[in-house]
């Protein structure tokens, strides 16, 4: 049988998986793979500027296209630099296959040059990982890795490949069948689905609480969710990760829930009689104080990962299944039986009452740009182009979640679980690679953007016309806000001192730079950004000490939301501080 090198087998396997883009950075332990890449034309390699950028770019690519993202980095520092992105993808269930070089098998364990225990380091922040010791095992490993990354609850899978395994040869049985030991269930049990239908049909105050799982399940799950919402007449809310699965322009949309969610979403969660959780996981940023979380509701939870069920909140009806499939099953039963939901007029009038609080209102200003206003204007100027929005982490992220509205899935890319500053720019690079014609905007903070700012060079190199819209408040605003609310305004190390001149920086990278600090000129400046056919960094100087409301302070119940800054206390007891 003809033989090929491990590196060549790897390339063949990537092609077999339909991979067309790899985000990576070369180094000694992956030189054989880079040489094999050089000798083919089907896979594009995107050279990032830092391996964290490679992992986040692959996340952005995956989240916006629905396909797995592929990362290629060298051993030691290459692998450790990628760890943040791997951990990020693990918490947000993003399918990645991360290929890391490793020192030769004969050197493993000897503290060789650029040796790190990559499988040890990534073991608990990846869905699975491998150390491949023989090129004959590579094909089966790569195939299983793609299955594991994409099936069930998606996540990152790491394949560590020693350099001698890349060089050594093995028979090229690339098409051969490998046994697959990973078979997550997709369909829900009929009895459970049936019971869910009955509970929803009888509900007088139902709510659909949706999460990132609906997006991971694919576009059909979002379509099915819309249908279910219509059939049941129930209001819909979503976690940060699930925005876009249900159209924000719908009447039944309550906005995001949780710590910075809307008053109506949190109140409806608290007062509902049947809570139907679809692909969300009762994270602490969602529930607030657990013993006060929706005390009187019957809870149904559909999740593909059984460990997400009953993890923090006990539910009455657990359903382990793919959300899209489970919703379709419900719709079939619902329609088949011509189920009539309860009249929900009373429930909706309650909700209208909460809506009338207009919790997202903020004090307007003529002299300075309010950050919320900036997001509103950006949304107004771009919504017709259905842009892909990425974010960094902080107040700007929450303002974007509150004031930018999404009508379709896969348009909102943000680091929810890990909350990784520095995610947004590389994620925008990945999203633009996967969606060359889309308008891609990173809504950033001036502090976060500096964490992976080197990726501007990547955008320049590949002529990616991404836009970075910085809400520059000269503070690590989210940290400053917490210090104001819980530590009596002792602003310890949260000022963004010595900022670069972002316009000059943009120009240094061959980008266009725009600065605006006048609300009257904002629309024109945004138009100028959008009209420019190339990457733009927009330094939007906003009000410096605005706070993000509404807010469920940590340790509080949903009903104890702070709506406006005049309700702010300035201290917090130790129990609450410890929950942060």
């Amino acid at each position, binding site marked *: 049988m003809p033989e090929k090198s491990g590196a060549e087998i790897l390339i063949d396997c990537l092609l077999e998986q339909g991979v067309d883009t790899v985000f990576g950075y070369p180094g000694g332990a992956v030189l054989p793979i880079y040489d094999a890449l050089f000798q083919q034309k089907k896979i594009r390699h995107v050279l990032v500027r830092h391996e964290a950028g490679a992992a986040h770019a692959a996340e952005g690519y995956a989240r916006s296209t629905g396909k797995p993202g592929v990362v290629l980095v060298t051993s030691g520092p290459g692998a450790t630099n990628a760890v943040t992105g791997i951990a990020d993808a693990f918490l947000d269930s993003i399918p990645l296959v991360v290929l890391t070089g490793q020192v030769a098998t004969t050197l493993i364990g000897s503290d060789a040059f650029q040796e790190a225990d990559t*499988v*040890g380091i990534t*073991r*608990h922040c990846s*869905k*699975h*990982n491998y*150390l491949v010791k023989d090129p004959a095992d590579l094909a089966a490993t790569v195939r299983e890795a793609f299955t*594991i990354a994409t099936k069930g609850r998606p996540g990152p899978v790491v394949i560590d490949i020693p350099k001698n395994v890349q060089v050594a040869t093995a028979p090229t049985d690339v098409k051969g069948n490998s046994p697959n*030991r*990973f078979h997550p269930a997709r369909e829900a049990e009929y009895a459970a689905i049936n019971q869910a239908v009955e509970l929803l049909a009888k509900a007088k105050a139902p709510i659909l609480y949706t999460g990132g799982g609906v997006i991971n399940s694919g576009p059909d799950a979002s379509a099915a969710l819309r249908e279910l919402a219509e059939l049941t007449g129930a209001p819909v809310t979503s976690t940060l990760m699930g925005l876009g699965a249900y159209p924000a322009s719908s009447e039944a949309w309550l906005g995001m829930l949780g710590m910075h969610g809307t008053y109506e979403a949190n109140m409806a969660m608290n007062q509902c009689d049947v809570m139907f959780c679809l692909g969300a996981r009762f994270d602490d940023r969602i529930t607030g104080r657990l013993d006060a979380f929706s005390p009187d509701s019957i809870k149904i939870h559909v999740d593909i*990962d*059984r*460990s997400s*069920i*009953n*993890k923090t909140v*006990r539910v009455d009806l657990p359903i382990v299944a793919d959300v899209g499939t489970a919703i379709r099953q419900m719709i079939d039963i619902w329609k088949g039986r011509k189920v009539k939901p309860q009249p929900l007029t009373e429930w909706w009038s309650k909700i209208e009452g909460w809506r009338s609080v207009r919790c997202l209102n903020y004090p307007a200003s003529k002299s300075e740009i309010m950050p919320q206003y900036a997001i509103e204007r950006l949304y107004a100027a771009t919504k017709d182009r259905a842009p892909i929005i990425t974010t960094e982490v902080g107040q700007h992220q929450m303002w974007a979640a509150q004031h930018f509205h999404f009508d379709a899935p896969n348009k909102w890319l943000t680091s929810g679980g890990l909350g990784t500053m520095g995610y947004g720019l590389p994620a925008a690079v990945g999203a633009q690679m996967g969606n060359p014609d889309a308008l891609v905007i990173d809504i950033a903070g001036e502090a976060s953007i500096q964490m992976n700012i080197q990726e501007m060079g990547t955008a320049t190199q590949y002529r990616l016309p991404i836009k970075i819209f910085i809400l520059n408040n000269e503070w690590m605003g989210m940290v400053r806000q917490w210090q104001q609310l819980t530590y009596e305004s002792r602003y310890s190390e949260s000022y963004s001192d010595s900022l670069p001149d972002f316009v000059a920086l943009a120009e240094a990278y061959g980008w266009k730079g725009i600065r605006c600090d006048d609300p009257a000129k904002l629309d024109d400046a945004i138009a100028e950004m959008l009209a420019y056919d190339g990457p733009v960094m927009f330094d939007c100087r906003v009000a410096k000490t605005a706070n993000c409301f509404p807010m469920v302070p940590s340790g509080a119940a949903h009903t104890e939301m702070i709506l406006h800054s005049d309700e702010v206390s300035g201290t917090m007891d*130790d*129990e609450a501080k*410890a929950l942060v």
Partner: protein
Amino acid sequence: MHIKEEVSERHVLTLTVDNEAGTLARIAGMFTSRGYNIDSLTVADISEDHATSRITIVTKGPPPVIDQIIAQCERLVPVHKVTDLTEAGPHVERELALVKVSGAGDQRVEAMRLADIYRARVIDATVNSFIFEITGGPDKIDTFVTLMREVGLVEVGRTGIVGLMRGSGAS
């Protein structure tokens, strides 16, 4: 503010896993990284082709935590099956211990006499020492070791528990 503790239950879990590099580290490490307890852990290859191993873990936690532990174990790719013997019903648990005592005269006679009562076997003897081999449930071994402290205990080695369900079914 003080940290609060919850009431724990002891559970014996058996896991059927792929016998491959890193599986034990993955399972043991998952327990540590998620803050679960391991009282004992045993592992050995159990299939003819050496492809699968059985791991027995004794753990403690409040019931919802035990449920999470099982779910988190099941989530690991090389884990095929998890059985909670404590929940599953009647089962047997056995552990083996080697217990070394040293002494002379009456102490030595007493050690022998107790060993006899507990059906421990002598597997090594010198003029001033014995090594006993004892198998049994964890309580029996605990009691035996406590008694041996009185008669010159030198050291103990224990295997940790293995367990099987009673009756003809497999766990």
